[in-house]
């Protein structure tokens, strides 16, 4: 066969590969949404789960997932951004910097269950907190930190060097340059990174089994005092997230409508991930157009 035929066949192969991946995704999404969408209604999203009767919902679990997301982002973003700034701006080429990079790579290839075990040891047992939102948030921060650092560093490096030089030429310090010129310009990349990390937080279960726990105390949504044990805002309470809830009810639950709740939860999870993705693209594009309006 001559090269032209080979080329055509190869093109066919590539198209088939791409279509296969799209097919897999479509089938997965289709399965999840088909089985789960009919369970989703306002009551399902807001009511607490039942332990033995039918009709439970996933309200507290959804709240826990988002709140955990917020808490872990509060930790991940500052630390990741600052570390990225250090690597991009201040770090000198040498063994120390190499070591930092090695640590980042190590953290990024850790299995999430190992991070969960570490969290159990430190954030649950050693600190005496027990299973809490904070333990879960810290463990998730450990998982997401390498991603955030890498994304920050890349986003910063990808900003045109002329901007940096111009700012320095005007007399700004390196820090001022970073804060006022480069970070705003790198913002879309940072945002994308944050949203990818958020997606991971939402779907994570293995690490949270051992840190945030598999139960949620009854939440009184009119109690906003973060120090009260029934308050949804209290970070020192166990908090079962949506992904963990799916795991739990598939394992040990006695409710008669297990399939409805499990499928509905899976559908909600996937929908949230979808929304996050769309939001990321839309926001990223918007910010990019506004920031680089020049």
């Amino acid at each position, binding site marked *: 066969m001559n090269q032209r035929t080979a080329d055509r066949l190869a093109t066919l192969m590539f198209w088939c590969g791409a279509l296969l*991946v799209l097919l897999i995704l479509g089938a997965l999404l289709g399965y999840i949404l088909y089985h789960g969408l009919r369970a989703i209604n306002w009551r399902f999203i807001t009511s607490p789960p039942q332990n033995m009767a039918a009709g439970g919902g996933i309200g507290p679990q959804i709240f826990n997932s988002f709140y955990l997301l917020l808490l872990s982002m509060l930790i991940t973003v500052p630390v990741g951004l600052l570390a990225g700034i250090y690597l991009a701006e201040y770090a000198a080429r040498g063994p120390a910097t190499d070591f930092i990079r090695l640590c980042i790579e190590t953290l990024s290839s850790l299995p999430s269950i190992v991070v969960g075990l570490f969290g159990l040891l430190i954030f649950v047992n050693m600190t005496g907190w027990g299973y809490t939102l904070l333990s879960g948030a810290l463990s998730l921060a450990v998982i997401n930190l390498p991603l955030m650092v890498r994304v920050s560093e890349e986003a910063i490096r990808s900003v045109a060097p002329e901007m940096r030089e111009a700012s320095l030429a*005007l007399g700004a*310090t390196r*820090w001022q340059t970073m804060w006022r010129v480069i970070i705003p310009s790198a913002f879309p990349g940072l945002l994308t990174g944050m949203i990818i990390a958020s997606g991971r937080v939402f779907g994570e279960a293995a690490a949270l089994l051992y840190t945030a726990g598999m139960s949620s105390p009854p939440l009184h949504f009119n109690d906003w005092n973060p120090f009260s044990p029934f308050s949804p805002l209290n970070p020192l309470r166990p908090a079962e997230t949506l992904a963990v809830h799916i795991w739990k009810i598939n394992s040990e639950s006695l409710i008669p409508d297990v399939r409805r709740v499990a499928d509905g939860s899976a559908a909600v999870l996937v929908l949230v991930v979808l929304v996050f993705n769309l939001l990321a693209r839309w926001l990223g594009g918007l910010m990019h157009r506004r920031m680089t309006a020049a």
Partner: protein
Amino acid sequence: MEKTVARAVAAKVERTGRDDACDRPPAGKKYGELIGRSLAFTAASLVILITLAIIYFIAAKGITIFTVNGISVKEFLFGRQWAPDRSAAQGGPLVGASTMIVGSMLVSLLAVALSTPLSVIVSVFMVEIAPGWGRRVLQPAIEILAGIPSVVYGWIGLSVLVPFVRSHFGGNGFSLFTGFLVLSVMILPTVISVSTDSLRSLPGQWKEAALALGSTRWQTIRLVLVPAARTGIITGVVLGLARAFGEALAVQMVIGNTRQFPHSLLSPIMTLTSAITMDMGYTIMGSLWNNALWSMGLILLLMSFLFILTIRLVVRRGLVR
């Protein structure tokens, strides 16, 4: 770009009310720089601290079974029997994790073997064949695939794949085969995104040179681009391998969990991760059994080191080449 700079100058002039505001550094700027730089340095040190802490604590817990309980490393790594609760009267506890180590390795390697060709094909598609369509359609698709939680993959594997394997391939559906099928889909996004980045970063002149010499697109891809992006692709593959090795919940639901060596693709297996998730809650912290589970965690940690070192080795050789 010039607008931002001009804006900065104008803002500074306005704020200080001086025309020569940009010629003289204002007071207090030194402290700003110092604080900022220290914050950044602290964050970087925190990263090192966390990594070292994880290594230390997991290793400390992981070796207690050797130091405190007296199990030999050889038995743990190569022993085939797992009976940590066997009483001293019956001969003492048996702590052989080799079936689980082999199970983990087999399922991960097979998952990568299946996933890599497909990932490279899709990456090439996204970068070379249909870049516009690739970025608009496939990129979000890959990101969504990556966002589906592992518990959902596991449940779909259990509900759909297991009966399918059972009726079309034999066995009882819970097998090494089902396990690596599920894993290969789960690691697709990882391998694809790293390979795509690698292909995208290739200098455009190489492709143009090949085409100018009269190659077809396929020849260019096959003989120039993919070999050139080899380092990145291998990095992606090893990252995918690491992810497969560390997957716990999805795998646990479809592999059958039998503590024996598989004798065919359709036999059930057991992985280190599913052993840990199944047994952790039933053991007491500090007991021999519990220590054995932490040692499995240590093996997972060491394997991830191995993966990183492999990547670094590959990258270094690639650069030198």
